């Protein structure tokens, strides 16, 4: 990490005209856009793996004991490994790289009117470590004993001792992969924060920064602050696994609950780490397509900061019945319910932004609006779980599972699609096909709800998570419950199939899509000043200066319904 201290201004004598080879242009590039794409494509590849895992274990749940097409029979160990790595991949290798790393890398320098990150080589190093972590994780599925199967929370002693988890190589490799990923994001996060703090365009004041940039930066800070103790814990757990120390072994005076605290002290802020960039993306898209100024920018910003601070005081609500002292629940229930306030402020402000708008239903806008609707469901179901009394019953049931999929799916999947449909013209200079985009949208959203609404019901009926075959439990083996599982599984398959139009649309649009000009959506922020796609250095016509806030749509003093941030005006609007 000390690398950051020394990596600095790039000194290079290469000539600009020199034609770069494929390797130096796309693989070992230090250009923030290329690194962003690397993160994005790695993330999408990992999402396909995670989606495949979901397909396999949902098939096993719907049709227990029968051979799953494209996989075979699912053994209990394989099932555990699949669910564990589905969770790990989707959070650490999909949500984080795509939302923070890819979007952060692509958007930050463009949106603050700069040519690159302040530490381009650290940026490249961060991606390389991330790639290494992904390779280690994938390799862990193929070692003797199979991949780690102790749930993504990796509670010791199960995760700490091979005699309990039966994955002598899978468990340490899983832990090493996660730790490497954390290191990669620490490097990236320091880069993001420093860049936004120091490298903003001339005239860009605090409240002129687009909200998505704010949110990526706050998310990076949350990540850095929450993950430190987990790094220490990961070192301790790794020693327990590989060397045989007893940090978390109760019989030698250690305490397994310590890991839970270390993990969830990170784990809860982590939710907001991935939520905030998605919220920011949605804000950008909504303002552009509703032609509206973001409602109460400052209030949203302060609510976000409040949310970030509060998120460090709620972690033990994941542990209400995990053997922590029951008196702690009073404190953590209170803070958990309080956290609904900043989230509610943000959501209300977003909804208020629609008021008086002129809403264009492009695919990006549809995804952004569906984010609000779906995340609202995810958010309100959290109230049941945050209330410790009801959590006694709902903890570790499918209700929890459906709840956090209703938060993580909008965040990781809908947020990503919003960003891709919206910034695709800027990324690649062409537009994606809207018709296919809408087919993709409706197919994804409807089937997504069909997957998880039955799971709420199953969870409320007492069905617990991480069980590979419910036929072993007479109360859960009923035909009507099994029907719901089958319905969810079929919906999942349908949803996965509806991703094919997206992939085809993406690839075809890269080559044959309608050419996009500089500012196809008539948006205000600085990335639309650069050519599409932006060349290395981003702003060949000179760096923009900022004269106003990012969301001056439909300003009464102006004929056009938008007012780019860099356009000099006769007056400087108040921010």
């Amino acid at each position, binding site marked *: 990490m000390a690398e950051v201290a020394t990596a600095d201004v790039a000194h290079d004598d290469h000539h600009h005209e020199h034609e770069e080879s494929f390797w130096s242009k796309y693989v070992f590039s230090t250009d923030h856009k290329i690194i962003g794409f690397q993160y994005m494509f790695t993330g999408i590849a990992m999402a396909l793996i995670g989606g495949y895992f979901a397909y396999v274990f949902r098939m096993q749940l719907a049709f227990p004991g029968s051979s799953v097409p494209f996989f075979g029979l699912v053994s209990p160990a394989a099932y555990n490994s699949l669910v564990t790595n589905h969770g790990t991949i989707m959070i650490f290798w999909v949500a984080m790289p795509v939302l923070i790393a890819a979007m952060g890398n692509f958007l930050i320098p463009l949106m603050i009117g700069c040519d690159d990150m302040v530490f381009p080589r650290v940026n490249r190093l961060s991606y390389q470590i991330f790639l290494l972590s992904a390779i280690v994780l994938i390799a862990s599925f193929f070692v003797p004993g199979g991949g780690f199967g102790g749930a993504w929370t990796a509670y010791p002693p199960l995760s700490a001792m091979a005699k309990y988890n039966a994955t002598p190589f899978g468990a340490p490799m899983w832990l090493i992969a996660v730790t490497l990923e954390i290191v990669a994001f620490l490097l990236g996060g320091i880069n993001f924060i420093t860049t936004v703090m120091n490298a903003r365009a001339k005239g860009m004041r605090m409240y002129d920064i687009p909200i998505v940039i704010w949110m990526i930066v706050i998310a990076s800070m949350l990540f850095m602050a929450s993950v430190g*103790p987990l790094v220490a814990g990961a070192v301790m757990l790794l020693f327990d696994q590989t060397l045989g120390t007893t940090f978390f072994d109760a019989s030698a005076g250690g305490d397994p*609950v*310590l890991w839970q605290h270390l993990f969830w002290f990170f784990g809860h802020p982590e939710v907001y780490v991935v939520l905030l960039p998605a919220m920011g993306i949605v804000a950008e898209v909504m303002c552009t397509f509703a032609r509206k100024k973001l409602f109460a920018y400052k209030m949203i910003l302060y609510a976000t900061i409040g949310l970030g601070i509060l998120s*460090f*005081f709620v972690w033990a609500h994941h542990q209400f019945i995990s053997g*922590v*002292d029951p008196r*702690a629940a009073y404190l953590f229930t209170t803070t958990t319910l309080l956290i609904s306030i900043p989230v509610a402020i943000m959501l209300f402000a977003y909804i208020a932004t629609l008021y008086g708008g002129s809403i264009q239903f492009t695919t990006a806008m549809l995804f952004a609006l569906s984010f609000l609707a779906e995340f609202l469901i995810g958010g309100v179901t959290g109230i049941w779980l945050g209330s410790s009394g009801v959590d006694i019953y709902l903890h570790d049931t499918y209700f929890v599972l459906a709840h956090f999929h209703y938060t993580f799916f909008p965040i990781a999947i809908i947020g990503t699609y919003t960003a891709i449909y919206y910034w695709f013209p800027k990324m690649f200079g062409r537009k994606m096909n809207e018709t296919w985009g809408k087919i993709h949208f409706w197919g994804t959203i409807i089937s997504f709800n069909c997957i998880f609404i039955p799971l709420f019901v199953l969870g409320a009926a007492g069905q617990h998570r991480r069980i590979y075959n419910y036929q072993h439990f007479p109360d859960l083996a009923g035909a009507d419950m099994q029907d719901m599982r089958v319905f969810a599984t079929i919906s999942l398959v349908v949803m996965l199939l509806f991703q094919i139009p997206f992939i085809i649309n993406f690839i075809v649009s890269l080559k044959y899509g309608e050419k996009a000009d500089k500012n196809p959506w008539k948006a205000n922020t600085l990335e639309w000043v650069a050519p599409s796609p932006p060349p290395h250095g981003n702003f060949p016509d000179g760096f923009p200066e900022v004269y106003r806030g990012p969301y001056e749509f439909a300003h009464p003093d102006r004929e056009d319904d938008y007012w780019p941030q860099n356009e000099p005006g006769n007056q400087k609007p108040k921010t």
Partner: protein
Amino acid sequence: MAGNSLKKYNQIYVALLILFIISVLGPELADILGMEGLSRMALILPTAFGIAIVKAYMVAAHFMHLKTEKIYAPYILLASLALMFVFFFGVKIDIMAAEGHNWEKPYEEPTGSAGHHGDSHHDHGEKADDHH
């Protein structure tokens, strides 16, 4: 960074050395005098940890130039420290206790001097405070 003269650095260094010697002598004195319990604590806590905080402050303020740095840097560091205290006090009720409401840890503290390393002369007889 005007005002950061070598002389200032030298003064800080000498002060650090003096503090360092006091911080080592304090606990040693407690051993030599055979202090126990509260008076021992009263000597060790300020000498070992109180001085550590003073030393850390001096290094941070003068060697790291936090005194003259823009206000961002000390805020970043203080916020980091504050969060670690949040973590510590949030976790304390579970990890730092041998029993709580409706639970207890049956783990037995190994009693007597830790014989495996044979440093019995170091054993100054402070009993493990038994929670059971």
